[in-house]
């Protein structure tokens, strides 16, 4: 049985070219980039090359890129860093109800430490309500942090419009672009953002490495103190193989992006159409068109997500769910509740996220298997009468 991997929003396989680029930096090129002898020059240059590649890809200059351990650190760094640096100016932050936990729980942490946070609601398609943003702005608002696209339902946020409002009020603006970079165009000047988070493994780079773009002039306090690495903005000996791998992944992504966007969006829409047509009482979560090309999120009435995933797994199909039963809390996905789903439908959601290796044949196979699984579980459910 061939495995069908449809959880690319969780992580992607590392490209073989990326792995090959990384390998020498574990062995022969091991010098600490901070040292002065010649074997360290190679590693130092490799980091700066990767920085240059990433900066160019997003329309930044290399001095504006800080490498981190991943998306969560980038989000923590951006939010805590700006909050601390501007604490004398104000202590109010604006975010949305559908952020990734790396943003949401960082904001909750700040709330416990003397900051106020406004959580903007979204509409039923998962798009931030812009009129609510203007209303939420206060004289002491120091930061707006709203994701580029949602990781669960794929809704793409009006980042440019948000940036315009942020600029008008001279408020720093951060966006979590973990789900978008490498998948749809991300340019810091077009988006007009001050800070932007990126994660390597979401676009076929290695895990454990990411980056934060920090626009020149943005006030920010480091998260990790120690050595002088990353222009004193992030201490710790650099993850050289990881950074080299990230750079290599950035070099590969743009070349296939526009073709992949079209191809995946088409696969996505065909699959959604098939499922909604063949399975009664199923609904698409998120926006029909303003959504990531690789994201599919569907709720099935009367059944619970984990039991769907376990059944899919028996056929070698990997997907994910917004049901609480896959987490330690009993609450289902905050994103699905924010778009107005009741608890039962939120528990019955499944996310399929496509990648560049996903084929029509694979999706057809899932579309063939899924109706039987849903039927079997509904026959077992006291909440569904067929």
């Amino acid at each position, binding site marked *: 049985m061939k495995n069908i991997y449809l959880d690319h929003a969780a992580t992607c396989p590392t490209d073989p070219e990326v792995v090959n680029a990384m390998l020498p930096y574990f062995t022969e090129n091991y010098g600490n980039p901070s040292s002065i002898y010649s074997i360290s020059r190679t590693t130092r240059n490799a980091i700066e090359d990767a920085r240059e590649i990433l900066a160019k890809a997003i329309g930044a200059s290399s001095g504006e890129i800080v490498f981190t351990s991943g998306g969560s650190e980038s989000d923590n760094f951006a939010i805590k860093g700006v909050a601390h640096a501007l604490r004398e100016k104000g202590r109010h932050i604006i975010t949305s109800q559908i952020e990734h936990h790396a943003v949401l729980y960082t904001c909750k942490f700040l709330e416990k430490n003397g900051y106020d946070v406004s959580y903007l609601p979204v509409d039923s398609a998962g798009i931030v309500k812009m009129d609510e943003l203007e209303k939420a702005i206060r004289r002491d608002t120091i930061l707006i942090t709203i994701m580029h696209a949602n990781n669960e339902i794929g809704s793409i946020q009006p980042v440019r419009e948000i940036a315009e409002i942020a600029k008008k009020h001279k408020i720093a603006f951060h966006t979590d672009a973990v789900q978008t970079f490498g998948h749809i165009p991300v340019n810091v000047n077009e988006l007009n953002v001050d800070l932007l988070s990126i994660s390597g493994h979401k676009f076929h780079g290695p895990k454990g490495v990411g980056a934060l773009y920090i626009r020149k002039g943005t006030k920010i306090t480091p998260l990790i103190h120690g050595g002088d690495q990353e222009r004193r903005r992030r201490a710790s000996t650099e993850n050289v193989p990881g950074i080299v791998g990230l750079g290599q992944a950035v070099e590969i992504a743009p070349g296939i992006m526009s073709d992949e966007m079209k191809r995946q969006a088409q696969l996505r829409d065909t699959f959604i159409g098939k499922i909604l047509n063949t399975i009664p009482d199923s609904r698409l979560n998120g926006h029909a068109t303003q959504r990531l090309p690789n994201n599919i999120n569907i709720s099935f009435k*009367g*059944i*619970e*997500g*984990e*039991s769907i995933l*376990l059944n899919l797994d*028996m056929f070698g199909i990997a997907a994910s769910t917004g*049901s*609480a*039963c*896959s*987490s*330690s809390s*009993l609450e*289902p996905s905050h994103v699905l509740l924010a778009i107005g789903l*009741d*608890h*039962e439908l939120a*528990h019955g959601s499944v996310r399929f996220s496509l990648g560049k290796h996903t084929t029509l044949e694979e999706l057809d196979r899932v579309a063939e298997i899924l109706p039987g699984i849903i039927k079997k579980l509904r*026959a*077992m*459910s*006291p*909440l*569904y009468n067929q």
Partner: protein
Amino acid sequence: MEQYSEKVMDHFTNPRNVGTIENPDGIGRVGNPICGDVMELQIKVKDNVIVDAKFRTFGCGAAIATSSMATELVIGKSIDEATKITNKVVAEALDGLPPIKMHCSNLAEEALEAAIKDYREKQKS
């Protein structure tokens, strides 16, 4: 997440006693869709012995497996014996559950309790 035991997977994949009973002697429906699990247990009782049990469950793998195991454990037991089947007994019969899934076994115990209570009340009337 911690993996399910083989027994859990067996009961999840091939759940025993799914469905409803015609004219059941006791019905227990517990849980809440808000928390992601609802279990309905129906029992048939003859001479104070549970001769049949059927379930329907909305929930995760552990919820379905504990429901299935609970029906296997109660069939053939007297009402008094059945009241001694706790969540721990069900979980142990499944070779254990991941810690975050232990609440699923409560569901089985509560459904059994509710079904027996319903049976006893019906006997009185």
